[in-house]
C-alpha cells in the first residue's frame, strides 16, 4: 500500500512537471485560457441563435462541463499513448511494481486542468452572456461535476488502451470528444435525438451526470438525482474496468510476443 502511494505520488510529480513544461505562462494565458472560453462561447452563441436565452443557458451548462470532458479525455488518451511514443512502455512492462498507481498519478495534472477549464468557462461566460445561474446551486453540484470529469477520464483511458497499437489514437479521441457534444446532450437534450442515437447516449459517460448537474443547478436535491448519479457511477466503473483490462491485455501480449517496438 505504501509503495503504491509512493508510485502514485511519483506519477503525479511527473505529471505536474510535464504540465508545467508544456504550459508556459504565455501558452497558458495566451492560448489555453482563451481557447477554453472561445470554444464554449461559440457553441453557446450557436444555441442562443437557435433557441434564445433558454437554450443558451442549457448550452452554457453543457459546454462548461464539456470543455473539461474534452480536455480530460484527450489528456488521458495521451497519458497512455505517450508511454508508446516516449519508449517507456517496455519499462512499464518490465517494472515489478503495479502500473496502475503510477498511471493514475500521471493523469492528476490533467484532472486539475479539466476542473480549471470548467471553472474558467462558468466564471467567464455567466457574466458575459448575462445568464442566470444560482451560484449556490452551482457549488451544490460540484461533486457531480467532479464525478463527470472522472467518468470522462475512464473513456479517455479506454480509447487510449484500445488504440495503443495504432498511430491515430489521439485523432480518434478528438473526434469522439466532439461527437459527445451531440451524443451526451450538451447543446440539445438527449430526448431530442433519434431513439437509436439515444441508445448510444445512454451507454456513454457524461450523459447521465450532465442531466444530474442540470437538475441540481435548477434546484433539485441529491435524492432527486440519485438514479442519474448511480447510472453515471456504474458507467464510469464499467469504462474504467474496460480500460484496466485492455491496458493489462496490451501489456501481456507485448510481453508474450516481445514486440513492444511495434505497438
Amino acid at each position, binding site marked *: 500500500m505504501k509503495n503504491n502511494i509512493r508510485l502514485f505520488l511519483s506519477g503525479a510529480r511527473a505529471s505536474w512537471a510535464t504540465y508545467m513544461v508544456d504550459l508556459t505562462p504565455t*501558452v497558458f494565458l*495566451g*492560448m*489555453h485560457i*482563451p*481557447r477554453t472560453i*472561445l*470554444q464554449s*462561447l*461559440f*457553441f453557446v*452563441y*450557436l*444555441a*442562443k*441563435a*437557435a*433557441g*434564445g436565452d433558454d*437554450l443558451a443557458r442549457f*448550452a452554457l451548462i453543457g459546454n462548461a462541463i464539456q470543455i473539461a470532458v474534452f480536455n480530460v479525455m484527450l489528456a488521458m488518451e495521451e497519458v497512455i499513448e505517450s508511454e508508446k511514443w516516449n519508449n517507456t512502455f517496455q519499462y512499464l512492462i518490465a517494472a515489478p511494481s503495479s502500473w496502475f498507481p503510477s498511471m493514475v498519478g500521471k493523469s492528476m495534472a490533467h484532472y486539475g486542468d479539466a476542473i480549471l477549464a470548467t471553472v474558467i468557462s462558468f466564471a467567464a461566460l455567466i457574466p458575459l452572456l448575462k445568464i442566470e445561474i444560482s451560484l449556490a446551486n452551482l457549488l451544490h453540484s460540484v461533486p457531480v461535476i467532479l464525478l463527470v470529469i472522472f467518468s470522462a477520464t475512464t473513456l479517455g483511458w479506454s480509447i487510449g488502451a484500445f488504440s495503443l497499437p495504432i498511430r*491515430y489514437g489521439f*485523432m480518434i479521441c478528438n*473526434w469522439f470528444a*466532439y*461527437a459527445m*457534444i*451531440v451524443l451526451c446532450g450538451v*447543446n*440539445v*437534450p438527449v430526448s*431530442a435525438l433519434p431513439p437509436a442515437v439515444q441508445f448510444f447516449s445512454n451507454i456513454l459517460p457524461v450523459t447521465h451526470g450532465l442531466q444530474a448537474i442540470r437538475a441540481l443547478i435548477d434546484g433539485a436535491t441529491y435524492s432527486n438525482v440519485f438514479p442519474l448519479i448511480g447510472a453515471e457511477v456504474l458507467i464510469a466503473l464499467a469504462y474504467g474496468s474496460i480500460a484496466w483490462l485492455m491496458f493489462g491485455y496490451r501489456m501481456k501480449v507485448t510481453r508474450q510476443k516481445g514486440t513492444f517496438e511495434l505497438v
Partner: protein
Amino acid sequence: MKTYNILSTFRIIKNSAFLQMKSNAVSIYFIATAFIQPVIFTLISVGTYVYGKKPDFGLFAITGTGLISIWNSNLFTSGEIINNERRTGTLSLIMATPTSLMLILLGKSFANALTSAFAMGITFLTGMIAYRLPIGIADPLNFAISLLLIIFSITCLGLVFGSLFILSRNAGEFTSVANYPVYLLSGLSVPLTLLPLWTRPLSQLLTPTWGNIVLNEAATHTHADLLPNYLIIIGLSIIYLIIARVLYKKVEYLALEAGTLERW
C-alpha cells in the same frame, strides 16, 4: 517580372501543391479530418437549429460549417506543414534554397484548402441525410465561383498565420485558439447580429465573413449583385498576400541572422 520568373513561380506552386496532395491522399489523419469533422459539426450546428425550431437556418448552418471545415483544415494543416518540415529536418533546407518559403507554403496550403472543399459537399449531404432538409443550391455557377475564390482567399489568410508558426513550436495550441474567434467573427453558423457592435470592423477584415455572405446568397439565389463582394474577397486576398510576404521576409531575415531555426 520577366516571363520565365512568372512561369517558374507557377511551377513551384504547382509542384508544391501536387506534393501536398499526394501526401494528403495517403494521410489517414488528413482524410479523417476532412471527412469526419464536417459531419460532426453539421450534426451539432444544424441539430441545434432544428431543435430550436429554426430549420430555415439549416442552409446557413451548413454553409457556415463547410467554411469552418475549410478554414480549420487550412489553418491546422498550415501549422502541420511547418511542424512536419521541422520534424523531418527540411525546414532549414527549404529556408536556404533560393525559392521563397512562402511560395512553397502557398502551393501546399492551396492544395489542402482545395482538398478540403470536399467538406462543403459533405456538410450538404449530412444535412440532407441526417435532418432531411430540402437543401439545394439555387445558383450553382456563382456558388462554384464563390467557393473557389474563398478557398484561394482563405489560403492567403492561412499564409499570414503560417509565417508565425515558423517562429513557434506551439503551432498546435495556436491553431486551436485561432479557430474559434474566426468562426465567431465571420458569422459561421452563428449570426453576426449576436455579437457586440464593436466587433463588426474585425469581421469585415476577415475573408470568411464575405465568403459566408456570397455562398449563402448564391445558395438561396437572392438575386443580389455578387460582384462587389467578389471584389472585396479579391482585395482582402491581395492584402493578406502583402502582409504574408512582409512577415515571411522578416522571418527569413531573423532565421538567416540567427543562422539556425533551432532557436524557435
